[in-house]
Structure formats: structure tokens, C-alpha cells
């Protein structure tokens, strides 16, 4: 019995941090190039996150990010910071930033969605989800 216990323990010690290549995706309904650059810039500057997906549709900006797992404990702080930055830059849009995996998962699905109508509905649904308590 003791051998099994030791056997279990070893592999977990070896798992060091894997490389952190950053993936940023931006989907823009109006092909407004400069908006895309600004968003990419903001997300690049912030090195707490390892991946982010932004979606512009109608007057909505949805930014779903994923913080590095070992920084997840300050997830809410990261969200607040990014929301502040994006609201300064895109005061005309209403901005929603979330580090929730659901948002990130759905945003990645939405970004290669062609029909703009469905993207707008998707973003609407996600906004509803975030407000929902339990």
C-alpha cells in the first residue's frame, strides 16, 4: 500500500510551469481596424492574463480574459482594472470584462460566428449570465 502512495506523489512534483505564449483574439463587426489595435494593446500590456478574446458588436464590447492560474486569486482585481482601462478608451460602448471561464469559452465560440445577429444575441446572453447570482 505504501508503494502506491509514493508512486502517486512523484509526477505532480515534476509539473513545472509550462511556457506562457499569449493568445489574443479580437472579433470586430465593423472591421474598425484601430479599435482592434487598441484592445490588443491593452491586453498585451497586462501580463496577468495569458489569453483574451474581445468582441465588438452593435455598441457592446465584451472582453473575456483568462488570468494565469496561479494569479487567479486576484481575478476580480484584474477584471476591475481592465474594465476601467476599456471604459476610458471606449466611453461610447458599454464594456463588459470578465475572467470567467464560461465567458471565455463562449466568446471563443462566438468569434468565428459569421452571422452578426447571432453574435449580438450571444453577447446579450452572456451579459445575462454574468449578472445571474445562483
Amino acid at each position: 500500500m505504501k508503494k502506491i502512495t509514493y508512486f502517486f506523489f512523484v509526477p505532480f512534483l515534476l509539473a513545472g510551469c509550462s511556457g506562457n505564449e499569449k493568445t489574443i483574439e479580437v472579433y470586430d463587426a465593423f472591421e474598425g481596424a484601430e479599435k482592434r489595435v487598441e484592445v490588443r494593446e491593452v491586453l498585451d500590456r497586462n501580463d496577468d492574463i495569458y489569453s483574451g478574446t474581445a468582441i465588438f458588436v452593435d455598441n457592446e464590447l465584451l472582453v473575456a480574459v483568462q488570468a494565469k492560474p496561479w494569479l487567479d486569486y486576484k481575478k476580480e482585481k484584474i477584471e476591475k482594472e481592465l474594465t476601467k482601462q476599456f471604459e476610458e478608451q471606449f466611453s461610447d460602448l458599454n464594456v463588459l470584462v470578465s475572467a470567467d471561464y464560461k465567458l471565455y469559452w463562449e466568446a471563443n465560440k462566438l468569434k468565428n460566428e459569421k452571422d452578426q445577429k447571432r453574435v449580438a444575441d450571444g453577447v446579450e446572453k452572456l451579459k445575462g449570465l454574468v449578472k445571474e447570482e445562483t
Partner: protein
Amino acid sequence: MEQEQYKNLEQQVTPPTPYFMNALKAFLVGGIICTIGHAITYFYIIFFDFTEKTVGNPTVSTMIFLSMLLTGFGLYKKLGQYAGAGSAVPVTGFGNAVISAAIEHRTEGVVLGVGGNIFKLAGSVILFGVASAFFVALIKLILVSIGVVQW
């Protein structure tokens, strides 16, 4: 032979509790159960409309369902014998405490047996949970109304 003379004789002969091995086994099994829970959390997030904030409930329910199966087929007591706290601390342990009491007292009838005894082991967890939550919330409310803390 006086009491303390016997006591230290008993101490010498009784095998010492294996602190390290117990702790290691509890850590491993507890970790594995929580990882399974983590996987179930991802499952619910991806396939159902739950955010990380709201995924707690379905995950806990699924874990308790799994603990019902393990308890019913007599596997949980073997897991518990190996893991100790590793199988008791996770919510499957809470489920096992409720379900084992319910199964056990079925022969005393559903109302008096199952009904009367279902919280024999887990009742204290609910009692202390609710009581401590009440006092913690009360203290926070008082601190906020004094202005020391905000919500």
C-alpha cells in the same frame, strides 16, 4: 499497578498513529476527489449555462450522487479506511454521512428510522455551519453599520 504506571505501559505497547502516512494518504485522496470535482465543474461550465460563480451547486449535487453510489455498494467505507480525512472532508464525505445513516436505519421504518436518524452524523456540520454563518454575518453587519468595513 496504579493508573499512570499502566498508562505509560499502554503508551509504549500501543502502536503509534502513523501521522505522516495518514496525512499523505489524506492529501492524495482528498486532492484526487477535489480534482474530479474540478473536472465536473468544467463539464458543467462547458456544456451547461453555468458561470464559475454559479457552478458550485450542480457540482456538489453530482459529487453527492457519486458518493451515494459508492456508499450504497460498500466502497466508500473502504476508501474511508484508506484515506481517513481525505474521504471525509470533501462534500462526498458529508454525502456519505447522510446516506449511510439513511441506509442503516431503513429497517426501523422510513419515518422513525430514516427520518429520525438521517442527520445522526451530518447534523453537527449543518448546525455549526448555520450557527457560524449567522454570527459571522451578524458581526459583519455590525461592523458595516459602524462603518469600520464596507460590504
